[in-house]
């Protein structure tokens, strides 16, 4: 479509000039010539399409803008239809790249018409938000076991001894806990349930992890989108839930300090997520999980988001531009991440990703 615009504009300009000269309208002739000139000098730009995760959407928007200022010959179009949609569209080859918060399953990878590479592009934290209307808004300290038991329905009141033990001095009353979860499938749910699986065997056996899971029946509410979860929590005293760190930050919702595997209570922030990323074990195919990462300052509930591309690109021009953009995004683009509440990739991971990007053929 975009490639057709300039020839069409050019033809229109030519027509305008011809008509103007025929009618001896000097001004119109000048304008028509200008349009013609502009149309001729602008070569059609490369258009790269992507689709997928809503979590990555703010990062992509910022990167497209910054990259477009450097290289005007390429335009990007990203549709944030969800990780599932991104994977589906990549499999159908309607987009050049997909973005997903959960790695592609082996089944889906086997179905793909070519080899698909996972390229981690951002990492983000999941904040545990709550509404207790406490004076002075003290920070709550929670650990994985308590959070899992809340969502399993075993801990039902805020003044439960386990919570009181971690938070001496906080005036917790005997109000019921209402756990809120995401009713729509989401990468945030994937990271959160991945974490609960790693800290609570009962959760791993009964519920498992995924972008959508079977939440224990009768426990709590489901709300659509992070906005829905935050909205429910804001109105219901005693509610607890989870949302992307960026969302919790921008909406100034109180969130908890969570105990990590070293025993420290860490607040979610770009540097604590970076600390988790630095100690995470990243295998060769880059499909990894970083929940409950080792490290003193690591925040335990965090996860990466991946760009999915085919190793063999169909279109040489598009492929070249896409690889150039991705190389920029994993190196220079990471400098823009902390402002958006993402954790930048550590140096060693960036180097390994550049090596991976070099294997893309076009």
């Amino acid at each position, binding site marked *: 479509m975009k490639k057709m615009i300039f020839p069409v504009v050019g033809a229109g300009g030519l027509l305008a000039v011809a008509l103007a000269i025929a009618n001896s309208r000097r001004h119109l002739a000048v304008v028509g010539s200008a349009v013609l000139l502009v149309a001729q000098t602008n070569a059609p730009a490369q258009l790269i399409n992507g689709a997928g995760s809503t979590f990555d959407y703010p990062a992509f928007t910022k990167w497209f803008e910054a990259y477009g200022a450097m290289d005007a010959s390429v335009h990007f179009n990203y549709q944030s239809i969800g990780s599932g949609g991104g994977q589906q569209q990549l499999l159908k080859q309607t987009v050049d790249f997909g973005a997903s918060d959960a790695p592609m399953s082996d089944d889906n990878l086997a179905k793909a018409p070519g080899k698909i590479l996972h390229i981690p592009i951002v990492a983000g934290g999941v904040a545990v938000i709550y509404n207790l209307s406490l004076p002075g808004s003290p920070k709550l300290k929670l650990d994985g076991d308590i959070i899992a038991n809340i969502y399993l329905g075993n801990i039902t009141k805020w003044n439960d001894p386990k919570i009181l033990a971690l938070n001496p001095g906080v005036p917790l009353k005997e109000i019921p806990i209402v756990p809120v979860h995401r009713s729509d499938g989401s990468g945030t749910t994937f990271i959160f349930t991945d974490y609960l699986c790693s800290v609570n065997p009962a959760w791993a056996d009964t519920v498992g992890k995924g*972008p959508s899971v079977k939440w224990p029946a*009768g426990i709590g509410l489901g709300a659509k989108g992070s906005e829905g979860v935050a909205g429910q929590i804001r109105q219901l005293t005693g509610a607890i839930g989870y949302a992307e760190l960026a969302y919790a930050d921008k909406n100034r919702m109180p969130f908890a300090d969570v105990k990590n595997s070293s025993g420290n209570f860490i607040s979610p922030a770009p540097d604590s997520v970076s600390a988790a990323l630095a100690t995470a074990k990243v295998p060769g195919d880059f499909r990894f999980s970083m929940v409950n990462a080792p490290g003193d300052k690591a925040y335990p509930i965090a996860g990466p988001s991946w760009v999915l591309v085919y190793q063999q690109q169909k279109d040489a021009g598009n492929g070249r531009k896409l690889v150039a953009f991705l190389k920029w995004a994993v190196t220079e683009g990471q400098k823009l991440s902390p402002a958006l509440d993402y954790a930048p990739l550590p140096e060693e991971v960036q180097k390994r990703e550049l090596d991976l990007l070099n294997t893309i053929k076009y």
Partner: protein
Amino acid sequence: MNETAPNQPAKNNAASQFGDRAFKGLTLLMALSVFVLIGLIGFELAHGSGIALRQFGWHFLFSSDWDPVNEKFGALPFIFGTLVSSAIGLIIAVPLSIATAVYLTELAPLWIRQPLTIFIELLAAVPSVILGLWGIFVMVPWLRGHLFPLLQKWFGFLPLFQGPIYGPSLLAGGIIIAIMILPIITSVSREILRSVPGLQREAAYALGATRWEVTRIAVLSYAKKGLFGAVILGLGRALGETMAVTMVIGNSPQIAKSLFAPGYTLASVVANEFSEATSDTYLSALFEIGLVLLGVTVLVNALAQLLLKTFAGPGVKPQH
């Protein structure tokens, strides 16, 4: 124009015959295209749910298990939620709508009829999402703080009104459906009542009936069939209502005795989970939910038409 002598029919020449036939054919095509469209929708849904149909069979309709991780799917909680929330919506909206329609046609002073009608139709113009937002931020807190505790105090002996009150619930979903179907039932009922012939009313007055008896005997029972048709139209809308219901129903796939418990409808689960469904079985199960919704709608409409046929006697058919 053909010149015709008086008392002679117009000449039937080939051109006007062709024009008539072409017009008839064209309108027939338009009417058939509606059938074709519905058939195509049903076919696509059936095609997409192939995997789930083969894997789960009839068990899908009776199982309460909705587990995307282990890929076990059952639609019973959603069918329950859809039917119950639509029923609550009808119970609240139908008496209100028909009473409003009776007021507008029989009792209201003439100067108020048009403005009131406009206001009611304005309610129909409110987009579903906006109503849902209003539901989350205004209606649900009010229900949680005021109406639900009152209901629990007065009717707490019934299991329907026991249990913890969160706010988002099956009852909240039913109330918002009632708000959405009120305008449509009111306007169609109003049209029906207006087309009751004046002679019927005059005959009743002549026999010595009071104002209310005239309304009851001459108008309402004459228009029974049409009013029922209006209710069916409202029910059709209620069954498919998605966004507003998703925002206030609590999105919890469970079958609970209490109306204060969160629920889930067929339309809501598709809206919530379709974009993130990655595996083929999951997608197929969601397609099958769509097929079930189509089936429920068709079944309910068919049942209603059957009931309609048992209403013997004259009646005004819905004209809209």
